[in-house]
Structures are given as structure tokens and as C-alpha cells.
């Protein structure tokens, strides 16, 4: 066909319009495809293999230790009787939290018509899926008899026994599974046009067959787009409610119980904020690497990173507020148990975890007030790593520190993790990054159809993009 002339036309159109901030440099619609879709399915560079082998080994260590746990018993972990939940649930809450950024970016920002989201939505959605996969692993393996975990599902059985719908843990099962399924659906629906592009680009027969089936015969008809847009918007709206509810429900695991330090009305918003916070940090961390290695600087611009960092900064301030409020509640309620627990956070056996949390989550992110740090790789990676560590330890403080000293001093007990705990935590990171690495080579990391939509000149009679 006459692609050459088309390109010139497109380029000429571009010349006419000033480039908006969604991309930098000159980029045509077709050029976007060339940039984003070409690496898919090609032989990855050596660095990828190195990274992949590292993450895969971590995953295998995790899998081996999980097998060891299932074969021997939860006793190989450090959990004990006051601290019946520890790394298992910390990791679960941590990963569910990480999983919040994706849906937030793709759904909530879509509703807010934040145009810049289109470049990073695919990637962060994928991270959501992977984080939720990591998260769901933990409730499954943390139970004493994992082979009976299916009893949590309300399926008809001859015993006529149903699960307890009043248990927050069951709410959790429903919330996390719903979240996973809806995120997967959202992600897949977004992927379909890109899969169609891939189908039409590739010449490899096998790949073509796979993409053909996955693209479901998508052909870009305007009627299809018509329904598609509508459905996508509705799912985004639903996912917004979901994203807020999921971590609220996770927080109910704690807030609905009566453990001092858990039994707090502030927990749902506090947890949701924390989840977004940790999720954004993880996205920034991964995005910086992907952007650099896959040379996507023109698509994922400094502006993107800066906006993300601003979100992180906002969340950090909110977290600081939540911490203060916890202290206030402890003081104002005059409840000796809550008071004791709060003092434990900052002066007790795990004071270092408490202060690490505050330092990493509240103090270090304040660096982002400085524009140079917001825009420097090392600065934002420092903050992102700090937030990731801080948020993990925040859950450690909430779970371990609250449990290890509750009502009766006679049962107070120190918790010490074992190598299995550390190994499984490592394994979950390994699994997450293994999936991320695979994703980066198998599927487009940027939603091309969404990007095309907002490229300059893509829409008729408007100056750049359709969303104003």
C-alpha cells in the first residue's frame, strides 16, 4: 500500500500542531506501533536474561519453601500464638496494596479524564494482576490445612455446611477474587485492539494463530468501538468502586476484630491510601527501569514520572496524617489497650519497625517537594524503594506489633521470623518480577490504541486528543 505517502501526511499534520505533553518528540500513529509492538516476541537482550534468571531463582526458592511449608506445617514459620499472623498476612496485604495502583491509574484516572494515564495504564494494570496473583498466594498457603482451603467457597455439598458470611476473611476472599477477575477482564479488554494489531503485524504462523485467537477477531469496526468505549467506561466506574472497596475489605480483617491497634474506624481510608501509595511507588520503580531499557522515554515522559511522584507525595502526607490520627485515637480514647499498643509501635519491642515505617513513608517522600528530585531517576528510585520498604514494615507494625502484646500480658510473646518466612517473601518478589519481565517481552507494555487516540492529530477537528 501507499504507506509512505500516508506517513508524510501524518507528519505534515504533526507539523501543524504543537506537540502536547503526552509524548515528546515526533511520533506518528504508525511509528507508535513500530516502537511499542516491535520488541514484542523478539529475542530479548542479555540483560533481560540475567534479570529473568535472578527473579526466576528467587521464585523457585519461594516455591520450594512453600512446598516445604505445606509438607511440614506452618510451624516452619515464626508464627506463634499471640502472633498467629505474621509474614503471611503482611505479604498478602502488601501485595494487595501494590495491586491498587494499576486499577487506580487505569480506572479512576480514566474517569477523571487524566490524559497522561494512557501511556502507563497497561503497564500498571499488568502489575496489578501480578501483584494480586502474589497476594492470593498467601491466604492460600497461610492456612493450616491448605488442601481444604476450598471450604471457603460457598459450594453446595453433602454436609450442608456453608462458609460463614459474617467473617471478614470470607469478605476478603470475595473481594480479592472479584478484584482479580475484574482487573483481568479490564486488562484483557484493553488488550484486544493491541492484540489485533499484533495479529496483523506478525508473520510468524504460530504467533499469528495465538494472537488470532486472543484478539477474538477484532477488526476495529466503529460499531465495535462504540460499544467498547461504553463498556470500558462502565467497567472503569465499577473498578473504581472496587479498588476502594477491596482494600477497605482487607482493612476489615483488622478493623472488625477487637485486637487493640486493629479495631479502628480509620482503617479503611488509611489502608486504601497506603495501598495507592505503595502501588505508585512500585509502578515508578518498575516504570523507570522499563522506560530506560525499552527506550520509551518519548512515551513515558518526565511529566508522567513527575505526576506520579506528586501522587506519591500526596499519599505520603495522608499517611503521616493517618499515623498521627492513630496516636490521637490512642490518647483521646483513653483506652488503655489501644494506648499501650500505640506506645508499642514507637517504643516497644519493634520500635525500629515503627520508626522505619515513619521514616520511609512520611519523612523520605518529603524530598519530592523538590522538583529536581521529582525529576531525577536516583531520587525517585530512592523514594520508591523507601516507600516499598516502609509500607511493608507498616503492615509488619500493624500485624506483629499489635498482636504480640494484646489484652492479657501473660500471653505476650516476641515474634521472630524464620528463614522460611524470608524465603517466601523473596519468592513473592521473584514471582512478581518474573511475571513483569515475561509481560514486557510478550505483550505490549503500552496501550497503543489508547495512545493513538491521544496522539496529536488523531482526532478530527480538535487540537490534539479528544479529552479536553
Amino acid at each position, binding site marked *: 500500500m501507499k504507506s509512505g505517502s500516508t506517513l508524510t501526511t501524518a507528519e505534515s499534520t504533526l507539523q501543524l500542531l504543537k506537540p502536547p505533553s503526552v509524548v515528546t518528540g515526533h511520533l506518528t500513529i504508525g511509528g507508535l506501533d513500530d516502537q511499542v509492538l516491535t520488541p514484542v516476541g523478539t529475542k530479548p537482550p542479555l540483560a533481560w536474561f540475567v534479570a529473568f534468571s535472578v527473579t526466576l531463582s528467587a521464585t523457585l526458592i519461594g516455591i520450594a519453601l512453600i512446598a516445604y511449608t505445606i509438607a511440614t506445617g506452618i510451624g516452619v514459620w515464626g508464627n506463634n500464638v499471640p502472633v498467629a499472623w505474621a509474614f503471611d498476612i503482611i505479604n498478602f496485604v502488601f501485595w494487595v496494596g501494590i495491586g491498587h495502583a494499576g486499577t487506580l491509574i487505569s480506572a479512576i484516572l480514566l474517569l477523571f479524564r487524566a490524559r497522561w494515564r494512557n501511556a502507563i495504564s497497561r503497564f500498571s494494570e499488568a502489575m496489578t494482576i501480578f501483584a494480586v496473583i502474589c497476594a492470593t498466594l498467601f491466604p492460600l498457603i497461610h492456612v493450616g490445612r491448605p488442601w481444604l482451603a476450598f471450604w471457603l467457597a460457598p459450594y453446595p455439598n*453433602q*454436609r*450442608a*455446611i456453608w462458609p460463614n458470611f459474617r467473617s471478614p476473611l470470607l469478605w476478603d476472599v470475595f473481594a480479592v477474587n472479584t478484584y482479580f477477575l475484574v482487573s483481568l477482564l479490564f486488562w484483557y479488554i484493553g488488550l484486544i485492539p493491541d492484540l489485533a494489531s499484533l495479529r496483523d503485524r506478525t508473520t510468524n504462523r504460530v504467533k499469528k494463530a495465538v494472537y*488470532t485467537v486472543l484478539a477474538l477477531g477484532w477488526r476495529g469496526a466503529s460499531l465495535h468501538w462504540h460499544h467498547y468505549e461504553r463498556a470500558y467506561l462502565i467497567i472503569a466506574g465499577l473498578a473504581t468502586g472496587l479498588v476502594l472497596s477491596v482494600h477497605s475489605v482487607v482493612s476489615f480483617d483488622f478493623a472488625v476484630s477487637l485486637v487493640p491497634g486493629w479495631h479502628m474506624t480509620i482503617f479503611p481510608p488509611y489502608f486504601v491510601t497506603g495501598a495507592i501509595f505503595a502501588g505508585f511507588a512500585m509502578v515508578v520503580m518498575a516504570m523507570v527501569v522499563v522506560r530506560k531499557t525499552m527506550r520509551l522515554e518519548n512515551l513515558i515522559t518526565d511529566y508522567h514520572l513527575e505526576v506520579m511522584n506528586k501522587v506519591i507525595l500526596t499519599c505520603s502526607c495522608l499517611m503521616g496524617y493517618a499515623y498521627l490520627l492513630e496516636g490521637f485515637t490512642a490518647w483521646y480514647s483513653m483506652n488503655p489497650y489501644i494506648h499501650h499498643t500505640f506506645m508499642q509501635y514507637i517504643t516497644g519491642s519493634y520500635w525500629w519497625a515503627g520508626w522505619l515505617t515513619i521514616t520511609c513513608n512520611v519523612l523520605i517522600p518529603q524530598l519530592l517537594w523538590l522538583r529536581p528530585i521529582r525529576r531525577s531517576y536516583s531520587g525517585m528510585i530512592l523514594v520508591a524503594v523507601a516507600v516499598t520498604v516502609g509500607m511493608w514494615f507498616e503492615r509488619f507494625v500493624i500485624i506483629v506489633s499489635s498482636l504480640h502484646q494484646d489484652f492479657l500480658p501473660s500471653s505476650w510473646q516476641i515474634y521472630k521470623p524464620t528463614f522460611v518466612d524470608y524465603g517466601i517473601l523473596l519468592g513473592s518478589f521473584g514471582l512478581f518480577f518474573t511475571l513483569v519481565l515475561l509481560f514486557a517481552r510478550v505483550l505490549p507494555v503500552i496501550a497503543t490504541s489508547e495512545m493513538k487516540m491521544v496522539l496529536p492529530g488523531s482526532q478530527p477537528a480538535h487540537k490534539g486528543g479528544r479529552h479536553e
Partner: protein
Amino acid sequence: MRFKWEVSRNFLQYSKFILPVGLVAVLATVLGVGWYTQPDRFVRGYEPVQPIPYSHALHPGTLRIPCQYCHSGAAGSRYAGIPAVEKCMNCHSVTRTDSPEIRKLAALYESGEPLQWERIHSLPDHAYFDHRPHVNAGILCQTCHGEVQTMDVVYQNMSMRMSNCLGCHRDPEYALQAGSTIVKGPEHCYACHR
């Protein structure tokens, strides 16, 4: 090559039918096989060969020996129990002493060696069924164990799963004697599990 294309084209063409049909078929198989191989389901009809061919059809059937003559624990213990060999000798020290099976029995009795019967009815160890309230409520043995008095060789008649217990506890009328005041059996966990 051509054929393959044909197949895949056909497949794509008919995928709307093939996939759901396949899915339903697999699902039906899994559920069907799962249902029919549930633990305990196939135990109905379990009929092992016993070391002594004791006939229930003869003793409680023709001779009308009451169940509790032998299974004397039923009224006072959780376990109905299998009678001691000595119980057999109550009669068989004088009757049918020439039968080879009875001689086996007598030899065991003399030597004191235990007689190992094959167990037929077995509940999981976490279920604490108690014969006492059931027998004392006038529920016939046959309700659960089947028409034992007609069986030459005893076999299991009821799956004896939780649904059997619950079914009767929720609606016990059919099992009770006429005029019984019992309306329901207990359904709380500690009634059967500890």
C-alpha cells in the same frame, strides 16, 4: 498443511459451538466423576467376606434373636459392639457343635485367640455417633443398617455421611416410633463432633 488449515479454519468457524460444548462436556465429566467417587459414596453395598459365615438371615431373621442380644452395647454405650466369642458359645456350646464353622469358633474360644471380623460400618474418627439416644428413642436398627435380618452376608446399606445424619435430625419422623415426642435432633456441632 492444507488439512491443518482446514481444521483450524473449521475450528475457528465452529468455535462458538465447539468450545462451549467441550467445556460443558468436561465440566459434566468432572462433576459426574467427582460426585460418584466422593469418599464414602461407593461404600454402599460393601460386603466383605467374614471369617465366620455368620448369617443374620438365620439368627435374627428365622430364629428371631433380638439385635441387642448380641449387640448389647447399643442401649448403654456409644458403641453397639460386636459380641464376644463367648456370647456365641452361650448357644453353640450345645447347638450345632458338629458344624465345622462352629468348631472353628469353639477352638478360638478355647485358645482365647481373638476373632477378627471385617469391619463394615465405619464412621470417621471425628464423628462421635452415639447409639444410646438413637436406640432409646425407639429408632429401629434397620433405619440405618438396612434389613439386616434378611441378609445372609451383611453389607452396608447407608452411606453414613453427614447428609444422612442431618437429614434424619432435621426430619426424624419417619424413623421414630408412632407417638414419639421428638421433633428434631440436635444440629449443633458438638452434638457429633468434639
